[in-house]
């Protein structure tokens, strides 16, 4: 019998349509897998009752001939940054203790309305601030992959629980959010596809805000086609998010099988880092070769401000976070720690409610926005951000996609890089530039390092050109022939 927890969405949808499996059977198989792999700590909240109920509804629809499309009956996990009606939503933070939203985020509502079956809410770095899932109040997530030395590894972050769930067979797919790499980097660390759409493609309404000019929801899946299918259900204009793009959603699978022939691929020379592991460079070279063998034309390009993207991000994102997280005041929801005055109550609540990394970022953000420093830091960063976006715009005059590594290393051990924030930030060195420019990007699992750990390659495309991004990603996926965990 086929292992139901190793299917792609594409395969499962075919089996559902053929009557070979029911949505309830799929849900039960995944709930059993969640039970068996609970030590990974991938979920903060499991929702088996909701899963069984939605699966039964999906089967009833299908029996009447009313199945809604390829997501109908597909068991998915939802990052615990998406507000879910009546289900605890924590953002991985102590400060949201007990928060049960009375509403559903637009993206999770769209998935629900497409028939997807929610299995639970996945663990994440606190407020999505991290690259290893170790900043979660609910504890670290373990990567289901283990290196040759047997150490417990991080799944990446911030969408670490989602990545671990998909890689380990606990969920067929999962939602993630990506602010500076939080979908793509854990995708690379866990050997799955992680896709960040163009800023504005998916509504941010109902997603706990980290950095509003960067946050974007996206799919985390076992194949490029699955990512296209899932994004189809997630995307679309939403009047409740003024930055959501008022445009038609294209058929993301339109060119999926067109191959790489004639694609113009840019290889940014600035992405070659001093001290980058040789196997990252080798995989990148291999990726270029694969695309050329498939008929793509690869050329070296220059994105001259690449080096400044990460420090620029670490001004812009904390600034926006300090503003967004001002709402956690102990008054309207979540944790409250009493104090003698209103200010003391705020200070006590936020002092106890925020973890070390969130505290650091809120304070950096507060500082760079404070009187006397605003121009020197924040406005300067916004100008550099314009230059970073301009670099891409110029490059895309001559190319269709950019090929780069996703992360500068494979997954590292839990506990490493803990005491050096900047070393941790460097995880996102290849993912942050596309975030700063609002561009769609995807990590495709492409190979293994010497320890047997997955490595991803990243593709970046023009704004709203996800169709070309998926086409190139599929070509890369076909050439790489990556085998996920069995």
């Amino acid at each position, binding site marked *: 019998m086929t292992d139901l927890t190793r299917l792609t969405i594409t395969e499962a949808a075919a089996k559902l349509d053929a009557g070979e499996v029911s949505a309830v059977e799929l849900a039960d198989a995944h709930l059993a897998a969640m039970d068996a792999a609970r030590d990974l700590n991938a979920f903060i909240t499991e929702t088996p009752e909701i899963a069984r109920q939605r699966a039964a509804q999906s089967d009833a629809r299908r029996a009447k001939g009313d199945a809604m499309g390829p997501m109908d009956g597909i068991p998915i996990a939802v990052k615990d940054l998406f507000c879910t009606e009546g289900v605890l939503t924590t953002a991985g933070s102590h400060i949201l203790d*007990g*928060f*049960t*939203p*009375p*509403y559903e985020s637009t993206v999770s509502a769209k998935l629900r309305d497409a028939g997807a079956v929610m299995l639970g809410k996945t663990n994440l770095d606190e407020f999505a601030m991290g690259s290893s899932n170790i900043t979660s109040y609910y504890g670290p997530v373990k990567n289901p992959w283990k290196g040759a030395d047997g150490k417990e590894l991080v799944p990446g972050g911030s969408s670490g629980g989602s990545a671990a769930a998909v890689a380990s067979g606990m969920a067929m797919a999962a939602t993630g959010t990506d602010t500076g790499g939080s979908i793509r980097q854990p995708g690379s660390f866990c050997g799955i596809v992680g896709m960040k759409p163009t*800023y*504005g493609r998916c509504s941010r309404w109902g997603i706990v805000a980290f950095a509003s*000019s*960067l946050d974007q929801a996206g799919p985390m899946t076992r194949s490029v086609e699955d990512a296209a299918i899932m994004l189809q259900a997630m995307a679309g204009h939403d*009047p409740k998010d*003024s*930055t959501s*793009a*008022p445009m038609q959603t294209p058929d993301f699978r339109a060119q999926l099988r067109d191959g790489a022939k004639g694609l113009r691929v840019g290889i940014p020379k600035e992405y070659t880092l001093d001290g980058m592991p040789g196997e990252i460079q080798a995989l990148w070279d291999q990726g270029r070769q694969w695309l050329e063998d498939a008929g793509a034309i690869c050329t070296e390009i220059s994105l001259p*401000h690449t080096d*400044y993207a990460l*420090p*620029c991000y*670490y*001004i812009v994102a904390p600034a926006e976070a300090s503003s967004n997280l001002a709402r956690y*005041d102990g*008054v*309207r*929801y*979540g*944790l409250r720690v009493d104090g*003698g*005055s*209103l200010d*003391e*109550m*705020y*200070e006590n609540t*936020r*002092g*106890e409610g925020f973890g070390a990394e969130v*505290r*650091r970022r*809120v*304070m*950096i953000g*507060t*500082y760079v926005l*404070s009187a006397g420093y605003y121009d020197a830091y924040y*406005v*300067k*960063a*916004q*100008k*550099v*951000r*314009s*230059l970073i*976006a301009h670099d891409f715009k110029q490059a895309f005059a001559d190319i269709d996609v950019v090929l780069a590594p996703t992360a500068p290393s494979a997954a590292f051990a839990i506990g490493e890089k803990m005491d050096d*924030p*900047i070393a941790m930030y460097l995880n996102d060195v290849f993912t942050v530039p596309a975030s700063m*420019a*609002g561009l769609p990007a995807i990590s495709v699992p492409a190979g293994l390092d010497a320890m047997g750990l997955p490595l991803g390659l990243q593709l970046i495309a023009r*704004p709203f050109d996800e169709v070309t991004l998926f086409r190139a990603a599929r070509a890369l996926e076909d050439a790489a022939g990556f085998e996920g965990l069995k």
Partner: protein
Amino acid sequence: MSLTREDVRKIAFLARIRIADEELDSLAGELNNIIGWVEQLSEVDTDGVEPMTSVAEMTLPQRVDAVSDGGVPEKVLANAPDREADFFTVPKVVE
């Protein structure tokens, strides 16, 4: 420039985050490392460059100024750590 212990105390108050006295020095060190690192942006020539204020090249849409929601005090108050009737409560702020 470098943040002092007192600067950190001030920033913490602006952010309304209680920091224990014995943490101020280590936090100053951490914040100074990060600020020192982001200061490399000063190398970049940004003369005449417009700051990026919108990621998507679009004008924010205006909506009709009409009430579209409301009348749900129970939903609004459901997550309040403390409430009285249809109100959130805070420590006394007037004498």
